[in-house]
C-alpha cells in the first residue's frame, strides 16, 4: 500500500503535515464506520478496513521516522524485519551514556529537571539526524538511500530511548 498515494501526495520526505491532517479529516468523513452504522454488514466491514488503512497511513506519514521508512520501502529497501545493526561506535557510546543517565533518574535529587534535560537532548539529536536524512532521501542515488537507512536505524534507537524516558517518568508518578 502506497500511503502517499492514498493521501494524494507525491512520494517525498517533505510532507505538508497541516495539509496531511486536513486530508485525513476529509477522508475520515467519507469512510469512517460511524457513517455506515445503519448500513449493511458489507459496508460496515469495508468502512472498518478502509478507515484502518487511512489511520495507519496517517500515522505513518505524520511521524518522520515511519515516513522515511515507508519511503524507503517504496524504493525497495525494507527495514521492518531486518537484523542489521548500527556499527557507528561514537553513536553507540553516546547511547550507552544516555542509558546510564536514564538509570540515574530514580536516585536523582531533582528527577524532573534531569528528565527535561534528557528529553531536550534526545529531541535535538534526533532533529539533527532527521535533517541529514531529509537530504539523503531526496537523492536518486541508491547508495544515498542505504545511508538513509542507517540514519533511520539510529532514529529507532532514539525512539526507544524516548520510550524508556517516558517509562522512567511514569515510574516516578507511580511512586508518589
Amino acid at each position, binding site marked *: 500500500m502506497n500511503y502517499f498515494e*492514498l*493521501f*494524494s501526495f507525491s512520494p517525498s520526505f517533505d510532507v505538508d503535515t497541516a*495539509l496531511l491532517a*486536513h*486530508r485525513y*479529516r*476529509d*477522508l*475520515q*468523513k*467519507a*469512510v*469512517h*464506520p*460511524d457513517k455506515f*452504522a*445503519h*448500513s*449493511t*454488514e*458489507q*459496508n460496515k466491514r*469495508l*468502512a*472498518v*478496513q*478502509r*478507515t*484502518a*488503512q*487511512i*489511520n*495507519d497511513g*496517517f*500515522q505513518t506519514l505524520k511521524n518522520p521516522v515511519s515516513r522515511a521508512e515507508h519511503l524507503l520501502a517504496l524504493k525497495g529497501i525494507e527495514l521492518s*524485519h531486518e537484523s542489521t545493526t548500527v556499527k557507528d561506535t561514537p553513536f553507540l557510546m553516546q547511547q550507552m551514556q544516555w542509558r546510564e543517565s536514564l538509570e540515574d533518574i530514580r536516585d536523582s535529587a531533582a528527577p524532573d529537571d534531569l528528565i527535561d534535560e534528557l528529553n531536550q537532548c534526545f529531541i535535538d539529536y534526533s532533529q539533527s539526524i532527521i535533517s541529514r536524512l531529509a537530504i539523503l532521501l531526496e537523492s536518486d542515488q541508491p547508495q544515498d538511500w542505504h545511508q538513509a537507512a542507517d540514519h533511520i536505524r539510529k532514529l529507532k534507537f532514539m525512539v526507544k530511548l524516548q520510550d524508556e524516558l*517516558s517509562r522512567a*517518568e*511514569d515510574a516516578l*508518578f*507511580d511512586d*508518589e
Partner: protein
Amino acid sequence: MALFQIAEPGLSAAPHQHRLAVGIDLGTTNSLVAAVRSGKATTLPDLDGRHSIPSIIRYTKDQIQSGYEAESYSAQDPQNTIVSVKRFMGRSLNDLQSNNLISAYRFSSSDHGLPLFITEQGEVNPVQVSAEILKPLVARAEATLGGELEGVVITVPAYFDDAQRQGTKDAAALVGVNVLRLLNEPTAAAIAYGLDSGQEGVIAVFDLGGGTFDISVLRLNKGVFEVLATGGDSTLGGDDFDHLLAAQLIAQWQLTDISPTLERQLLIEARRVKEALTDNVLVTASLILATQDVLRFDVTRDAFDALVLPLVKKTINSCRRAMRDAGVGIDDVLETVMVGGSTRVPLVREQVLRFFKKTPLTSIDPDRVVAVGAAIQADILVGNKPDSDLLLLDVIPLSLGIETMGGLVEKVVSRNTTIPIARAQEFTTFKDGQTAMAFHVVQGERELVDNCRSLARFTLQGIPALAAGAAHIRVTFQVDADGLLSVTAMEKSTGVQSSIQVKPSFGLSDVEIGHMLKESMTHAKEDISRRMLAEKQVEAARVLESISAALNKDGDLLSDEVRSQIEASMQSLSQLRSANDADAIEKAIEALDHLTQDFAAKRMDNSIKLALKGQSVDNI
C-alpha cells in the same frame, strides 16, 4: 430503478422517517437514558420525574428488583442486592479479591474464573446484572418515545479494557438491543459540550465517576473530535472515597465483627457524609447499631480531604501522563470539562483547577452530560442526520501485544492509536519441524506478561514442518470502532489461517451467552428463532435497499453482465425475505454480498477519491 418495494410494516422504515435511538450511560452508581427529541438531546425521566436510576439490582426468590426499589433494600439485604456491578465487569475473582471489593457478597467462580454472585435466585454473573440495569432504561425509552428502538449507544469508561467492553456489549445482547456503538464517556461529554459551544481547540475532559476515572485530551476541528490521548484508572472512583471514610469510621468507633449489613450501612453513611461535605465544612456521621446504640463522629472537610488526597493525586498524575501522550502543553488547553458525580468533591475541583490553570466547565449537569452526548451520537449513527459534520475519532486506551519468549510482551498496537486500526507483526518458529504455535494476547503497558491483562489464548495448527525460523507467521490485530479486538494468524507460505474474535479470558463464551439468552426468554426456543428470523429479514431489507440505491447511483461502474447477475440475486433474496426460513435468507444475503463485493469496494474507493478532490479544489 424501483424494482423493489421494501416498506412493509415492521421491517423497514421509510427513508426519511425518524428512527428511534437513545444514548445510555451505564454508570457504576447511577444510570441514565437520553434521546434527541425535536432537535434537542435530553435525559428521559421516569413517571415520578426522576432522571437517573440507581445501578442496583436485587434478586429475591421469585423476582428481580431494580433501581430505587432495589436500593431501599441495600442495607437490609446486602448479599442479594448488587451495587456497583460495573466494578466487577470483565474482572476475575482473583482481581476482585486483591481489590477488597467482595466482602458483602457470597461468590462462586465460573469455569473461566469469572465471579458469580450467589443470590437467592442462584448464581448470576456481572453481565446478567448489567443487563437487568439496562432493561428498565430501554423500557422507559420505548414508552417515552413510543416505539421500538433501532439502536442504542452505550457509554463505557475510556479506560475500559477489551474484556470490560465485551462484557458491556454482551449485556446489551442479553436485553436484545442493537448496539450502534460503545462510546467512551469523556468523548460523549465532549460532544455534549462541543456542539453547544461550537469551539475549536484542545479540550481536556476529567471524568471521575462512582467507580472509574478517565482523562481524555481531545482536539476539536470543524466538527471532528479527535481524541489525542486518554488515560485513567478503571478501579478508581467515588466508591473508593466512601471506602476510605468507612474504614476511618470503623477505626474511630472501634467496630469489630462487621456483618455485611453493618458494612453496607457504613458505606451508605460514608457516602452521605461525603456528599454533604460538598456544601458544608463539617458533617456529623452517625450510625444506629443493632443494639440501638447511636454512634457519632464529626468529620471536617479538611480531614476528609486529607483522607482522599492520595487518590486525587493519582488522578492528577494520570492527567499529566495523558497531556504528555497527547503532545500538548497546559497552555494549549482551551477548556476543561468536568464529568461524573465525584467531581463535586471540592478537593477534586481545586486540584484540577490547579493543574490545568482553568476553571472547569460545569454548565451541563455532570451526572447527565455523558448520556446527553451519547444521545447525540446515537441520533447520528442511526441515520437521522445524514448531513451532520460531527465525527468522532477515538483511540484505544491500552496497548495490545503478544507474549514472546521469556514472558515478555511484544506490543502490536500501542495505546492512544486511533481506531479502527489493523496492525500486523511477523513471528517465526523456534524449533525444527514445529507445526503449531500458541499465541497469548495481552493488554497493558508493562513489559512483562504477568503485569498485563490476559485477553485470550489461541493456537495456529498446521504450520508446515520446516527448519527453525523458516516459517513466517503473520499475526494481524484488528480493533474495530468499539475498541474490540479480533486477531488472525496466518502462515505465509501455505496460507494456513487461524482467527478468533478475542473472547476475553474473563468474559463469557458464545455458548454461555446463548444459554443466558435462552434462559432470559419465557418461550425460549420459539422466541429465539422468531427473533433470528426477524433480524435476518431486517438485514435483508437493508441489503436490498442499500444495493438498489447503489445501483441507481453508480450502476455505470458495472458491466451489464455483472449487473444482471446482481439483479437476479436481489430478486431471489427479495422472494425469500417473505418466507420463514432464516437460514435461506442468510445464504441469499451471503451470495449477494459475494457478488457485490467488488462493486462496494469500488464505490468506497470512489468516495475516498471524491473526498480528496473536494479537498484539492478547496486548496486551489
